[in-house]
């Protein structure tokens, strides 16, 4: 039975991203589906990618959904590195076919806003944040 599962969608995007060797080279698998509570924690290794849900909609039958996401590239080192991480994510995610073995959802993603950049004092890291729409069925 079709179910528009939001966690599966996040895993679909996450696993799609870390399926790219270019992204793995940059963040070494550190692609998370939520922000940390304490970014000051020294155990949080950067650079990394964070996928953050920003709303969306699903149809009545739960057969398909559209979810807005923010995709962050974070770097403690420089804005340039944050942008480089974001660019790698963009090249692999935008207009791509999302399909991962073992996950019930398939779909596609499209960037809707180019990245916003800046320095986050609380996190103490540079970021580049773009917006996406992810469409899935399954």
């Amino acid at each position, binding site marked *: 039975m*079709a179910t528009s599962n939001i966690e599966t969608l996040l895993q679909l995007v996450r696993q799609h991203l870390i399926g790219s060797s270019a992204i793995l080279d940059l963040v070494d698998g550190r692609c998370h589906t939520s922000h940390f509570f304490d970014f000051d924690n020294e155990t949080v290794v950067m650079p990394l990618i964070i996928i953050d849900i920003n709303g969306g909609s699903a149809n*009545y039958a739960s057969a398909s959904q559209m979810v807005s996401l923010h995709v962050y590239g974070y770097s403690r080192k420089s804005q340039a590195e944050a942008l480089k991480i974001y660019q790698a994510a963009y090249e692999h995610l935008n*207009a791509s076919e999302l399909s991962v073995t073992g996950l019930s959802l*398939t*779909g596609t993603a499209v960037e809707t806003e180019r990245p916003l950049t800046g320095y986050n004092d609380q996190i103490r890291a540079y970021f580049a944040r773009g917006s996406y729409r992810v469409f899935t*069925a399954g």
Partner: protein
Amino acid sequence: MALNKPTGSTNNISFGPAIVSMCDWVDVSSVGATNREQFLVDVGYIGEDGVNVELTSEKKNIVQGNPQLIEYSFVTTQSVNISFTSIEWDFDRFVWALGAGSTTTANTGTGTMTTLSFFFGGNPLNTECQIMLQHKMASSGNTLLLKAWKCQSESGFAIPFTATEEHSFEFNFIVLGSDYDWYGSALGAEESLIKFERLSTTP
């Protein structure tokens, strides 16, 4: 179980745009059976709104009695329109989109300067073209093909020199009735305008 939730197949759900391919129309009945599909070329980048295919079937109702009840309904007009917004300055596409005009390429001046030219105006004929749309379905991975056997430009288009957005050109086509497909086979009575194909793999 959710209330009034239908049962369906998510394999039949899809999202996203399509790729548009075009070429000149040729009467295969006169040139002999040939695969016209091989002449199709990708029209290039299109706008975010993608491609729109509009199928219409206008009906005429025969009514009788008082109050008048519909006794019979028959089709008076069937048509297909295809529209999309090109964002490429490609003069060859302009010719298809207008059904008129011509292009030339010449080496002019000194060195390697090439001049591409587009001429328009003075020919009353509306030339024909062929259009194919290709879309890979997001869920099933199947490929949808729409083959519009014989098309003509439906209108002109504006050329906006805008400051804040990329130049874009709205192309509109109407599909004509055709006696033959692109491979020389005669088309049946219900096959004259378009053909949708759903392929289990990417061609």
